[in-house]
């Protein structure tokens, strides 16, 4: 072999080796959520759902012949931690996409880094309405969501309280975080649309142990129901406070009333609380059944009850949505994944729904108003609040962008 030929052969083989290495290199996806503190039941359930979906995809051969590797980070529900993590994931870990965000405040603070780096974010739990509209003034938006936005939940809550159950005097109790205060604004808007002004509007802080003044104000104003926007531990203190005052009116609120730390800490006081849910832990379709069975087997939660079924299901679906987009894009390039998400050719069968064309260039919300149902705390679990919803649960509710007033229609039937 001549020297020239030898160099050629060796350089080709070297190139082949490096090509093989890049093909086998895992696809890094960032996972960000609060795995500690008051929001952790959502964060950990979300992470577990994400892990499960990733495992399944990897066992089936991965995406583009490459395995998915998760880079998990705990943001402790703190905005500043979220910002640090975003920078670390982008600059140091070079993730191709991010799934997660439980807390609206953290999402709003962190997402601009991904927007600037042109890396897609699949927001799978945080519900603040602003989240997918933060970059409306820019030509491209890299933030997608497969959770029910507050703009959907707040009208649902108001419909449930005012239309279905006929309460005319309602009080709003919301925590002082971004989540609570943006949610309160959404509730006010939804109430105003019905021509109702809340009789009391009260705030509380995270870790508050006494809700007496807030509840007394609502009680004195003659509230017939309490609409809540907060997270598990403080919601439980509201329920406990009502027990203490010997005053019990229905609690209707955002989906966080399904959190395990609300149900456990409120005990009997929490029974009957109602909230919009995209997923209820019931094996209503084969897909949901296999999801529940393998979740319970893998993570063995207490009493076979998922800490936050909604977070787990949405976390699980978010990975499948992203994997489908990466596959379609044939690349891990941010703008290409984003373009694929906005025009997904094949439907993705998830746990919450079957995502057929979930996103478009203008619409980054996979969940529409017709998808969530009302859940109720009953016997320390979240069940369907309405018989009719439970019966029809096996019909997968598909995205319908026109569905704005579906709950009202359902109520009239």
């Amino acid at each position, binding site marked *: 072999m001549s020297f020239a030929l030898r160099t050629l052969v060796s350089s080709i083989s070297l190139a082949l080796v490096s090509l093989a290495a890049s093909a086998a290199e895992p696809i890094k996806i960032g996972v960000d959520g609060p*795995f*500690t*503190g*008051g929001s*952790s*039941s959502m964060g950990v359930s979300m992470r577990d759902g994400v892990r499960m979906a990733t495992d399944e995809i990897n066992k089936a051969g991965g995406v583009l012949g490459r395995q998915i590797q998760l880079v998990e980070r705990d943001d402790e529900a703190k905005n500043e931690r979220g910002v640090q993590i975003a920078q670390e994931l982008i600059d140091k870990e070079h993730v191709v996409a991010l799934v997660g965000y439980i807390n609206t405040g953290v999402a709003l603070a962190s997402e601009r880094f991904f927007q600037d780096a042109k890396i897609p974010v699949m927001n799978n739990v945080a519900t603040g309405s602003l989240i997918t509209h933060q970059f409306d003034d820019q030509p491209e938006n890299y933030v997608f969501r497969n959770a029910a936005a507050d703009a959907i939940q707040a009208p649902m809550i108001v419909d449930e309280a005012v239309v279905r159950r006929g309460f005319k005097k309602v009080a709003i109790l919301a925590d*002082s975080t971004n989540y609570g205060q943006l949610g309160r604004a959404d509730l006010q808007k939804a109430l105003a649309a019905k021509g109702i002004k809340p009789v009391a509007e*009260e*705030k*509380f*802080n995270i*870790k508050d*142990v*006494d809700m*007496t*003044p*807030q509840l*007394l*104000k609502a009680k*004195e104003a003659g509230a017939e129901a309490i609409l809540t926007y907060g997270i*598990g*531990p403080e919601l*439980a*203190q509201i329920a406990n406070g009502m*027990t*203490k*005052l*010997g005053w019990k009116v229905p609690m209707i609120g955002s989906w966080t009333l399904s959190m*395990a*730390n609300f149900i*456990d*800490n409120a*005990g009997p006081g929490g029974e009957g609380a109602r909230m919009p849910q995209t997923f209820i832990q019931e094996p209503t379709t084969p897909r949901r059944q296999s999801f529940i069975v393998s979740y319970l087997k893998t993570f063995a939660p207490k009493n076979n009850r998922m800490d936050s079924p909604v977070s787990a299901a949405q976390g699980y679906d978010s990975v499948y949505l992203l994997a489908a987009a990466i596959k379609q894009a044939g690349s891990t390039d941010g703008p290409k994944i984003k373009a694929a998400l906005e025009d997904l050719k094949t439907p993705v069968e998830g746990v919450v729904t079957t995502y057929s064309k979930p996103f478009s260039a203008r619409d980054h919300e996979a969940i529409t108003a017709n998808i969530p149902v009302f859940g109720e705390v009953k016997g320390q679990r979240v069940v369907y609040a309405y018989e009719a919803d439970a019966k029809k649960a096996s019909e997968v509710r598909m995205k319908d962008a026109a569905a704005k007033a579906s709950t009202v229609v359902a109520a009239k039937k």
Partner: protein
Amino acid sequence: MQILTQLVFSGIALGMIYAVIAFGYQLTFQTSDTLNFGQGEALMLGALVGLTLVATFGMNYWLCIPIVCAFGALQGVVVERIGVRPAIKIKSEFGWIMSTIALGIIFKNVAENVWGRDDLKFPSPLPEAPLHLLGANVLPMELLVVFGALALMLAVEFFNRRTIWGKAVVATFNDREAAKLMGINTGRVITFSYALSSLTAAFAGMLIAPLTLTGATMGAVLGLKAFAVAIIGGLTSGLGVVVGGLILGIAETSTGYYISTGYKDVPGLVLLLIVLAYKPAGLFGKTAIKKV
């Protein structure tokens, strides 16, 4: 009137929670001029140890209290030995601040790993149905907190005034150097006061856990508010912390109702600023003349 009664009752219950923690600050300050900034964490550890005994080992709530107190005392000794004694030895003015904060963070992290990060429910030893008192509702647990805290503080005050050990504590408070010359082992007295202080906190944790939620982060906010109470009432007065606690508790609940729940923490802290400006030793504190 009924509303006001309800607010005052809730304020008293809340205030006594703050007071009993603030009492712990006061105990160590008396002997060593130092504070355990991990007081909130001592409370949290007491509550979580109690929860483990009650929920996991199925022990009776009342029987757990002495065990939790013993645990608290031990924890206080650890804090003093590791965090405070070295600082006192080298006469460092501020070393103990950082070291007690550091120990507090370490305890919190340990608790997060042992007990998890979620808030847990502490089964209530008393019925959870409210009692009616003067037209207002009170939980039996709240009464227990108020009377338990008072009983504990009275016991400690009695101890300080009537027993020889207590007299050693008071002597150390009055003049550490003179007490040393009189043959009092002031080092041991300081250790003892830390043990007593953490014992108080652990006991408080056990008392309030059924009312609040129990978890690794429960101590942080309470510890901070109790510190404000200790400043308002005076770091040298047992009576002061009780009054300070009641003021802050009632201010919080009634501001929340009459002004706005968004501002409920403000009056207490404004009071803190006023007290610091006009009576830096606290409402009931003795103004110490520091000779330099």
